[in-house]
């Protein structure tokens, strides 16, 4: 496979006056997980729908394994699978019926389809639920039957559109594990997500999307170092000590400190020179300095930057987003 799994240039989609996708350039190498990170309405799903041949682009080009998504839609369809934001299975049908139906549509004979469905149900721990309607499944089970349906024919490229939105943490971890196994077997995954954490866990590279544009692109490490490795939250015992604590923290972390609305809370971004360990070291040093200054700390935490923080950091900069786009 010489051609990239996905290659788009100047991809555009407008809905009325709204430019949902406004000139997106992406290159996704085969065999990797690529994350599209952005808030609701950023245009992630629209990009996926164009790549999956569900929507026609209004401008630019998109190729999947070298095949144009408009002119060679059937060639694209034979290599991709889509797991949509909402369960892409028939809720009225049972889990088993769904898989047999899709297997038949892929050309399996009736006995082969039944056998393949049984295999997949077993692999996804759904054998007991095989004869239950999908609408009676839990959120995690739905996701699994959905992914199972997507790998009836193991695709070369799998689109996962917000696969863990609305899932409890355990189901989310299950989905992550499944994605890792699927990728280890050679499938390329395009993942859209609202959670930096998820993109960080799974993706080799991430494109941050806002208002239909790529505003930053890189490995998770590169992205995080560009916005600071984390956020330090401190709660003091005594509100009167806050001004002094603020001064100590600002000096130790070499950054500005924000006072929370809570009179004992302080928040600061840890601008470490890249790696997360750097941020942790910097934060622990700050904690030690607070202690030696006689300031009593009730609670202390170092969090990963949230998507909000990524966004603030990326969109607050004076440079225009377009200039930051790296293809």
């Amino acid at each position: 496979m010489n051609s990239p799994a996905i290659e788009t240039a100047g991809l555009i989609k407008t809905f009325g006056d709204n430019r949902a996708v406004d000139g997106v350039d992406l290159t996704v190498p085969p065999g990797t997980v690529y994350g599209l990170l952005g808030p609701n309405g950023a245009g992630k799903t629209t990009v996926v729908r164009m790549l999956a041949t569900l929507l026609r682009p209004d401008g630019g080009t998109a190729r999947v394994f070298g095949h144009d998504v408009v002119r060679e839609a059937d060639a694209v369809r034979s290599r991709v699978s889509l797991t949509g934001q909402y369960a892409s299975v028939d809720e009225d049908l049972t889990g088993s019926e769904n898989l047999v139906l899709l297997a038949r549509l892929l050309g399996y004979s009736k006995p082969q389809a039944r056998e393949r469905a049984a295999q997949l149900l077993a692999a996804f721990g759904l054998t007991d639920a095989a004869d239950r309607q999908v609408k009676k499944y839990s959120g995690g089970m739905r996701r699994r039957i959905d992914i199972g349906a997507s790998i009836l024919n193991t695709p070369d490229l799998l689109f996962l559109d917000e696969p863990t939105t609305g899932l409890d943490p355990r189901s989310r971890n299950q989905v992550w594990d499944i994605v890792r196994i699927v990728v280890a077997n050679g499938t390329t995954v395009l993942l859209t997500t609202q959670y930096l954490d998820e993109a960080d866990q799974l993706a080799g590279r991430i494109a941050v999307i806002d208002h239909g544009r790529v505003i930053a692109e890189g490995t998770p490490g590169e992205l995080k170092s560009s916005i600071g490795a984390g956020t330090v939250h401190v709660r003091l015992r005594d509100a009167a000590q806050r001004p002094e604590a603020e001064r100590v923290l600002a000096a130790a972390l070499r950054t500005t400190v924000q006072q929370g609305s809570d009179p004992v809370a302080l928040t600061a971004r840890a601008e470490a020179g890249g790696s997360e360990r750097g941020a942790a070291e910097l934060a622990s040093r700050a904690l030690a300095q607070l202690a030696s200054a006689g300031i009593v700390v009730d609670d202390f935490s170092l969090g990963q930057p949230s998507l909000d923080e990524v966004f603030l950091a990326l969109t607050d900069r004076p440079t225009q987003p377009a200039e930051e786009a790296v293809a």
Partner: protein
Amino acid sequence: MTTTTVTPEAVTAYAPSRETLSAVLTRGERPRRPSALSASTTFGWRAILKIKHVPEQLFDVTAFPIIMTLMFTYLFGGALAGSTREYLQFFLPGIMVTSVVMITMYTGVGLNTDIEKGVFDRFRTLPVWRPAALVGMIFGDVLRYILAATTIMIVGLILGFRPGGGFLGVVGGIALLVVFSFAFSWIWTMFGLFLRSEKSVMGVSMLVLFPLTFLSNVFVDPRTMPGWLQAFVEVNPISHLVTAIRSIMAGTPDMTEMMWTLIASALLILVFGTLTMRLYNRK
């Protein structure tokens, strides 16, 4: 469901296993792409499964036709033909056409609700013959048309309808009706894709169906109608269909009317099938 029910997931937590998952992620030879007919019948099977899981939807194709038949037979029978029994000989094929043609609109309503769900996204990313999902859906609806027609025929026979063409005449008449209804359904698939909500599909359907079925020769002989209305009734394909079915059921098949009905069916599929597929591919 009782409150003590525990989902299996809660009992045995699922843990994705690398071995079992890798085993199903095979990259062996893929089956060959199914034929257009095979893909369409698979989608038809889906429609039957939906009827199996949601049998309430059959209410439309049983209760509604029975009410239509009873209502109009007793409402008009005495006044128009002297007795309900007399009227039925004229009226039954017509009310059968009216009921079944009205039921075709559920194709559009059903498609409109179905396509909003994620499952259609998956269907549309499958490398199968493009119209298969819609053709299969209408195959399923054809079953409903047959059920509705049979229901009306049984009610008619009980009330005293006596077809001169016998069993074969009845089967032939229903067959022609099903062919026409299959073709007619493509109007609704177009609206189902084109309009935004289920309600607007219903609204447009009514607007089309009421004039088309009532301004025909279903209820009365058009000879008493004003000239301009007779002109409409004359070209209305429903009138041709009704005349053809009456003749088949009476045992004296009218080849010209049958031919017109088949031509109308072919045109409907050609025009609305094409428009539907254009919308389907673009959506």
